[in-house]
């Protein structure tokens, strides 16, 4: 028998690394097992050919929270939030709109919108801020509440009622569960602006702007902005910093190590079995795999209570975003965008109707001929990603169904070319620059990262799968019906995105419930 392992973490995605770093810092002997050949999960860099390097699935992101940066000394390990970028809502006629954190600029922008935008952003940032106790704590139980949960609710009530004030509280309660479509129509006239905000609200979710709950998903996204501006930061840098932070505290990360099974005896987890048959025992097992994989595959329904196992199969979360990585042998030009501007995040979502139509197709197992495209050129921010003079373009494509009618095999390349053609309408020289491309449908994302149905967030961020119901009743506080088995991934509260929050809150919970002792 080798050394005693206090905690095994399944999956070295960023939440797994955050959790590992916290636990290692608390003195636990942590082993993080990663199936892939590099750490980072969906945030791990991808390579096309030998020369072109792409960030992971998430390209633009907000900085990780100050608490995580401080606790894990990330800056010391080379982490720095990237340069702030704006979002440019592209217009087919070249009449683009630049959307900053608190300002707008562009031709034909109605004066009323230019005036309303800062107020709107301030209002919604205040809403997001008022929810801080909810996002930064484990979700409170509603029954048999311990003091920590009561305190979360009390702080939330205080923030919402006294922090926001009565009027704003009423407004928050009015919009919290409704759709972004109505809110934006009430506030703005400009289609480009509404389309862009709506696209941000639904990106990564199987929701259109008219789907109830899309104000909440947008608030969750805005919550990131409280830590700093959006940047096309290098996810590689974040992953390296987390890895070093975890390893310097004593955690070990084993790559190319796929977990086949979580070992459970009489309702208690005691280790894992690897794909190669090796068994590793530990006092605590923490899964960064998505909840459906964790419970249905790694634990297996027979070791769970029947209704819980059944509810796991009902978790909603079918991926709708594909990734198109394009290697370019030159600089793409976009009509109406200057060389200074092209390093920003570019968005093709000209109207809310366009976004809604793009979503509609995915509901019926079709891809949209006019998808929402979230485009960035990371090589402009990090020249090491491509050879001199060459560039890499990374595109999130929404909405692309996980299960396409007729299957992906024959239609995948067709869709990739269609998207490149669509991009060509904005960038006339793009097609001539394409050296190679990689297209990951949700099905490919499932294969590459193990997330069921290729969902970014390991489960929809709908209201019925949020907070004390995320990922599902019975496992919403990171501990699960299996003793000593915890969850720490995006499937947990507060959900997906490169935030590290689920990993941090899970680590707190593990320590609260006895840690490695």
């Amino acid at each position, binding site marked *: 028998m080798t050394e005693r392992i206090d905690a095994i973490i399944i999956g070295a995605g960023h939440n797994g690394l955050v959790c590992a770093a916290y636990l290692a810092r608390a003195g636990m002997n942590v082993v993080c097992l990663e199936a892939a050949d590099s750490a980072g999960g969906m945030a791990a860099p991808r390579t096309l050919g030998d020369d072109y390097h792409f960030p992971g699935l998430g390209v633009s992101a907000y900085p990780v929270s100050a608490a995580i940066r401080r606790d894990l000394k990330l800056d010391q390990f080379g982490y720095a939030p990237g340069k702030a970028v704006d979002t440019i809502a592209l217009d087919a006629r070249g009449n683009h709109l630049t959307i900053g954190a608190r300002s707008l600029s562009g031709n034909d922008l109605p004066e009323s919108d230019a005036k309303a935008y800062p107020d709107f952003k301030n209002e919604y940032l205040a809403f997001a801020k008022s929810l801080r106790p909810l996002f930064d704590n484990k979700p409170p139980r509603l029954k048999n509440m311990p003091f920590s949960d009561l305190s979360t609710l009390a702080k939330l009530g205080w923030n919402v009622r006294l922090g926001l004030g009565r009027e704003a509280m009423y407004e928050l309660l009015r919009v919290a569960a409704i759709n972004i479509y109505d809110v934006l129509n009430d506030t703005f006239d400009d289609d480009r602006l509404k389309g862009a905000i709506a696209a941000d609200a639904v990106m990564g979710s199987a929701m259109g702007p008219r789907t109830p709950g899309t104000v909440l998903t947008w608030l969750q996204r805005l919550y990131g902005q409280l830590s700093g501006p959006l940047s096309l930061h290098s996810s590689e840098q974040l992953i390296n910093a987390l890895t070093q932070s975890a390893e310097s505290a004593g955690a070990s990360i084993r790559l190319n190590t796929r977990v086949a099974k979580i070992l459970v005896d009489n309702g208690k987890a005691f280790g894992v079995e690897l794909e190669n048959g090796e068994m590793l025992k530990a006092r605590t097992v923490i899964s960064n795999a998505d909840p459906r994989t964790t419970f249905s595959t790694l634990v*297996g329904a027979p070791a769970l*209570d*029947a209704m819980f196992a059944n509810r796991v199969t009902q978790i909603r979360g079918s991926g709708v975003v594909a990734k198109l990585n394009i290697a370019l042998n030159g600089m793409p030009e976009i009509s109406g965008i200057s060389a200074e501007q092209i390093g920003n995040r570019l968005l093709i979502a000209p109207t809310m109707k366009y976004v809604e139509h793009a979503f509609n197709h995915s509901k019926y197992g079709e891809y949209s001929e006019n998808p929402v495209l979230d485009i960035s050129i990371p090589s402009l921010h990090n020249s090491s990603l491509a050879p001199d003079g060459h560039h890499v373009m990374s595109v999130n494509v929404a909405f692309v169904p996980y299960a396409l009618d007729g299957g992906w095999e024959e239609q995948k390349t067709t869709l990739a070319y269609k998207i490149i053609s669509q991009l060509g309408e904005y960038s006339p020289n793009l097609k001539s620059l394409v050296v190679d491309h990689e297209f990951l449908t949700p099905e490919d994302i499932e294969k590459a990262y193990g997330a069921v149905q290729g969902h970014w967030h390991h489960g929809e961020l709908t209201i019925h799968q949020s907070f004390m119901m995320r990922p599902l009743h019975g496992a919403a506080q990171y501990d699960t019906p299996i003793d000593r088995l915890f969850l720490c991934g995006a499937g947990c509260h507060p959900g997906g995105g490169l935030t590290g929050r689920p990993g941090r809150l899970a680590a707190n919970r593990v320590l609260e419930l006895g840690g490695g002792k």
Partner: protein
Amino acid sequence: MSIDREHFRLALQRTPFHDRISAMSTTEVWTAWNTYKVARVVDKLSAEYFAVRSGCAVMDMTPMEKYRISGKDARAYLDRLVTRDLSKLRPGRVTYVVWCNDEGKVIDDGTLFQLDEDNYRLCSQHHQLDWLLISAAGFDVQIEVETHEIAALAVQGPTSFSVLAAAGIDGLDQLKPFGIIELRCGDIPVTVSRTGYTGDLGYEVWVDPADALQLWDAIFGVQGQYDIQPMGLDALEMVRIEAGFIMPGFDFNCAESTVRNNYDRSPFEVGLGWVVSLDKGHFTGRKALIDEKTRPPGRRLTKIVVDGNKPPGQAFIYNGKGGKLVGEIKCAIWSPILKANLALADIDYINGQLPPKLWARFDYQRELKWRTAWAECHAQSKPFYSPEHRSVTPPARF
């Protein structure tokens, strides 16, 4: 038997024995049981009751829900489904089981027949297909409803062994309680299990619906030799209470159809702790039941004898006459053989203990005039009635 396609034209389906029972019915008191029309009383309640206790009663139990569970993982599946340790169950044997939801509350109880290696039949009072299928995820197991494909008669009472022998079913003499045997009745194949819901010597005879009348006629063909009565549900209610058997859905709510918080019951709370094995490995509800075990008992379904000769019917139970309300009677009968009022009562414990004094307060009529009565109750842990001849092998011949 497959379901008659026109069955919806009838409010209730007829069992394969219906023609015979209908012909014998003098009362025409029928009720519904799992979509079938069944007798509550066929002729005289007292005659049916005494047939179980001193002769032989025959009851049509075709409507009993029956599920065939088979496949490689059938045993593992059942082990995860029910609370009882099944390691002693063998082919040709039957065991009594109970199953719970995740919260450790009883969904239903039933009898589990192991027909052969990977082949089981589960009989239950209520429809369970949804729960059985929900529980099947992750197991290589097939679950089929066979309620309508198998007809069944309960043949119960001290002379039931002799009646079946006289009716042409030979070979029951070595069949022990909870045993199953394949035999013939004349030229029809029958499966006989030594099981029942009466607390007396008795058998359940399982037969193809096409052969049902032939079986009935064989049994009632010896009616001249023995006292054989067709029995309805009312007599069954009397004898099952005497035997201390509980009825989910009547004595307590079935968990998955309970709406109100705390209105469902755990196996411990209904006196089924003896079929819960917390150390047999994982089963649904185990964690909740382990947790329940750490707390003092909150309440128990308790067998009580109520003093006096007035039927307690629906009654509240108090801790002493005029004391604190501690419970209520769920079912009660006058037992002719014990000459006592017997009841099952749901009683709240005080500090983990049965309240020291139990008094029932109930209303009854005398010549249509309502009166209130108090009667002292005496809790009992053993079945009210459990005759020795019930488990003797071979049973006495008459």
